């Protein structure tokens, strides 16, 4: 299935969870700090990363803090 991750379309296998997606971009969901995830403009809380299954066409944003005023 196709997911749009941070504006880039990527191919994932079916039943991919938020945690699977994070692992695919070298983020360990268990130890990750300072990161948040939005799915189709809604927050997915860290406690739900393991169970939240993504669907074809979903838009996922993975964000962190960067320099800014």
């Amino acid at each position: 299935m196709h997911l749009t991750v941070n504006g880039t379309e990527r191919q994932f296998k079916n039943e991919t969870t938020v945690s699977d997606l994070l692992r695919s971009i070298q983020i360990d969901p268990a130890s990750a700090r300072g990161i948040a995830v939005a799915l189709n403009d809604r927050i997915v809380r860290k406690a739900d990363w393991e169970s939240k299954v993504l669907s074809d066409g979903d838009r996922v944003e993975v964000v962190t803090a960067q320099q800014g005023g």
Partner: protein
Amino acid sequence: MQDKNIDRLIKPDYSQPVAGIDGDFWHLGPLKLRSRLLVGTSGFPNPLTMMEAFTASASQMVTVAIRRINLKDRSEESLLSMLSKAPVHILPNTAGCYTAKEAILVAELAREALETDFIKLEVIGDDETLLPDSEELLKAARELVSAGFIVMAYTNDDPIVCKKLASLGCAAVMPLASPIGSGMGLVNPYNLELIRDQISECSLVVDAGIGTASDAALAMELGYDGVLVNSAISGAKHPMKMAAAMRNAVLAGRFAFTAGRIPRRFYARASSPLEGRVGSVTQEN
């Protein structure tokens, strides 16, 4: 991202000494702060210079933006792990948001990522002036306050909008001195003074447009609780020196405000006594 120091960042050690006037604290939501200088993290020539500037500023709160992580390169040391080495609170912002909806999502992402209820709320109207869109700003502030955020609202220097933000329950109302990054200083000190005079229910911070130390001092002399500076420090030839200059300017301005300035007069008033001047004529009875 997995730096253990991030724990310290999220729950900093408030007992660290910082420069300030003894016993002169101010409040931001649940925080009691000594430093009245808030500093942005944007635009420094390199991370080392940024950290040196923060130390020189003695600031207790620094702003960050919320942005997509870099999917291609995960090797860079994260900003958070760098900031975790300084005794500062992190204030995430909603910079770059044009609507209340966008700003609310970014605020929620910031709360989730940084485990803080603080949000510097920015909702801008266009990308040339970066001036706030008051309509969207008020809408976002109302929703975020009711969702339990500690809202610090970046706003136009419009006394009516500022009063509305204060009455909505913002922890701080932060009128601009002049547009973001312009370095023009306080272009309308009259409005800023009016805002100070009319708002007492929350903290007031002058945000944006500060160009050099005297601008920060002037803002503090008007009775503002704090000043937020980014470009003036990060873009200075010597950011660490400018950070120290800002720290001292904020202290000087605060000291002057609490000391109480003399009123302005149209004509001179001699400071030396007029009586007993050499050569003056005195009449004896």
